[in-house]
């Protein structure tokens, strides 16, 4: 097993390295920096921002917004998912509304959120919460759709009522789906970061991307993109490590 993992890691890092080298060559020979800056130029720009302290501040602000939005969205999504799963009529009544709202992207809510919540942090939290909620909710519902007839029959044989079955059979079976939804939802949180930071902010990685665009600094734009990617990979690894330990008995497979 360990040999296989290390081979996979080697292949992966080899591919990334090869890609970076090809990019570096293309950036230096074919393209002008304004169109496609080489990785070395992007690193230099990132380093300069790090030394001035601006990059850390951007990353910190973005991370705090993501943490609030992701946590709130996950809790809300899981709560609604469980509510829908436990009470079928609630699900049948409210699901059309959810299905309608999930096609309206966070960027469309930008102006309403600005008007309702102002230009402070709250609006940014709301936007990130919004996109995270749907993913967790939909995944939780998909988990409930999976039937465990044999387990439910077994529980009934032992005299479990419908509440016992929910608590001891259906709920535990849904936990991996909730966590899976949270992992996918984390991607949505990160994707929405830039939208949230279109909402009048002076700092943040999304703001760095938007601002660099106005200043035609392609390097700055890529620093922002790379920063979000690094933050995302770190958050995902942390989430995987934490849930693997906390939810050991569910055999999450990540």
């Amino acid at each position, binding site marked *: 097993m360990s040999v296989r993992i290390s*081979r*996979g*890691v080697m*292949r*992966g*890092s*080899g*591919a*990334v390295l090869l*890609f970076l080298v090809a990019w570096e060559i293309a950036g230096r020979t074919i393209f002008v920096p*304004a*169109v496609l800056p080489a990785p070395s130029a992007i690193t230099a720009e990132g380093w300069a921002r790090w030394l001035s302290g601006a990059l850390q501040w951007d990353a910190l602000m973005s991370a705090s917004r993501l943490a609030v939005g992701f946590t709130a969205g996950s809790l809300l999504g899981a709560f609604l998912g469980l509510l829908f799963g*436990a*009470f*079928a*009529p609630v699900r*049948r*009544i409210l*699901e*059309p*509304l959810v*299905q*309608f*709202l*999930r*096609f*309206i*992207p*966070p*960027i*469309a809510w930008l*102006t*309403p959120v600005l*008007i*309702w919540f102002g230009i402070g942090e709250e609006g940014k939290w709301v936007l990130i919460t919004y996109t995270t909620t749907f993913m967790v909710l*939909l995944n939780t*519902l*998909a988990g409930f*759709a999976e039937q465990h007839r044999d387990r439910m029959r077994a529980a009934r044989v032992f005299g479990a009522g*419908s509440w016992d079955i929910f608590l001891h059979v259906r709920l535990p079976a849904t936990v991996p789906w909730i966590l899976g939804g949270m992992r996918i939802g984390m*991607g949505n949180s*990160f*994707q*929405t*970061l*830039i*939208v949230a930071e*279109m909402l009048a902010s002076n700092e943040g990685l999304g703001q760095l*991307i938007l601002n660099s*665009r106005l200043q035609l600094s*392609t390097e700055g*734009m890529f620093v*922002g*993109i790379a920063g*979000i*990617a690094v*933050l*995302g*990979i770190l958050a*995902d690894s942390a989430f995987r490590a934490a849930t693997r330990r906390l939810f050991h008995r569910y055999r999450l497979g990540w």
Partner: protein
Amino acid sequence: MSTAIAKLSGQGFAHHLTWLVLRVLPFVGMILLWDFASRAFDVPVLFPGPLTTWNKAVELIAEGQLQADILISLWRIAIGFVLGSLLGMTLGLMMGLSRPIADTLGPFVHTLRFIGPIAWISAVMMWFGLGETSKVILIVYTTTFVVLISTMIGVLTVHPNKLRAARVFGATGFRLFAHVTLPAALPHVLTGARLAMMNSFMTIIAAEMVAARQGLGFLIFNSRQWMEVDAIFVGMITLGLLGLLADRLMALLTRLLFRRFRPADA
């Protein structure tokens, strides 16, 4: 709880009607709440109520603008969704079947899923110009990953007994793929495509931030600059309804076309 369900899920016409009313109720409630909130907010320009929004919609339809916006947006979404799904399915099958390919492409896929289409807007504009290509590429981008990951999971979770049974009967290579792996993975592909359609719809606004002159995304984003909130609401509601309609249509189509593969009904 179960008795309540039994009572409500009877087959009679009256019961169907009851359910229909119950499902429409949240929408009615939302509209009433919206009306109340907009009156409480007291600045109709910034927060128009349902009636103002409806009048705006009628105005946009009378001008023919809303229909044109819907058509062009749906066209972009359709192309991006189909291309993105095909690309995602191909890559997902490759990554599911071959460990080296999965190892090689994995890091890129797992990195890019954190970066939203809006982050790429200026890059895509520089690389692909201001035309339709850029818009479609952004939609393809967000569609692909969801289908890819879903397809890969589908291929990886094909039950080993199925593969063993087929091998016992002498199936190898392409036949094993076409008759066992692909049909078993198909429900995952379809679920992924249905989820990805949400991304296609959501990305239309980002796509139409790239120098568009028409489309629902343009309507929403352009009205933002003029603070025409009523037009924003019209765009949002239209987008939500179209998405809902497309989702239902796709669920129906998968049920009709792929019944034998038993796609899960979300």
